């Protein structure tokens, strides 16, 4: 075969990143009372470089989509959920 028959090697397609997906919801039905033990006393967590709320949620809860739980519990220190800083101390509810 000649050099004209070479096959183009495509780089492997990267997976789309859904870690910054924001979600919400509401209902016409009334909200059922939540068991208090799901909130728990929580624990403190100090942000390290490379962290995001979804990464912390994945690590602490095994589910990245639970990042709003951490955000809601730390609104006093987090002004933008896409922006957290190394050294920041966060409360992780129910962890």
């Amino acid at each position, binding site marked *: 075969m000649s050099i004209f028959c070479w096959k183009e090697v495509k780089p492997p397609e990267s*997976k*789309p990143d*859904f870690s*910054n*997906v*924001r*979600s*919400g*919801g*509401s*209902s*016409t*039905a*009334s*909200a*059922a*009372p*939540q068991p208090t033990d799901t909130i728990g006393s929580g624990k403190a967590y100090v942000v390290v470089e490379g962290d995001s709320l979804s990464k912390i949620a994945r690590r602490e809860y095994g*589910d990245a*989509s639970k990042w709003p739980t951490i955000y809601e519990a730390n609104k006093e220190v987090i002004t933008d959920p*896409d922006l957290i800083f190394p050294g920041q101390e966060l409360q992780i509810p129910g962890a």
Partner: protein
Amino acid sequence: MRTRLFGISILALTLAAVLNAACARSSENPGATGTTGTGSGVRVSRIDMGRSLNADRTINDTTNSFKPNDTIYASIVTEGITATTTLKARWTYQDGQVVNESTQTIAPAGDARTEFHIAKPDGWPTGKYTVEVFLNGSSAATRAFDVER
């Protein structure tokens, strides 16, 4: 005589195997594969999808085809009354990646609409997606949609 006994034994074994398979199948979760299903006393009757929502949680502009910058709404219609029902929406991309999961715990006193929505600030990748709704942990309904340019 020996041949007849052998034949009866084979027949009995076959019958036992068929009964065993039937019993195993009846114990599977009936809601896991349906397109709509039931929770305890509550049933998902429909999922509507669109780009915006009315105050009563109905969809303003029903569509199955979204643009990358859309907020995607799923409005779930439930029927029935319970003190506590957990409704979960799992959004999945075509490659199997879970895009998002969120849960609401509601106490419906009849027909109700519960909406879940997702948004992605940097835009949705084009492709096929599904939203699967779980009632108290059991799959109750699934709906597919597309994101196109």
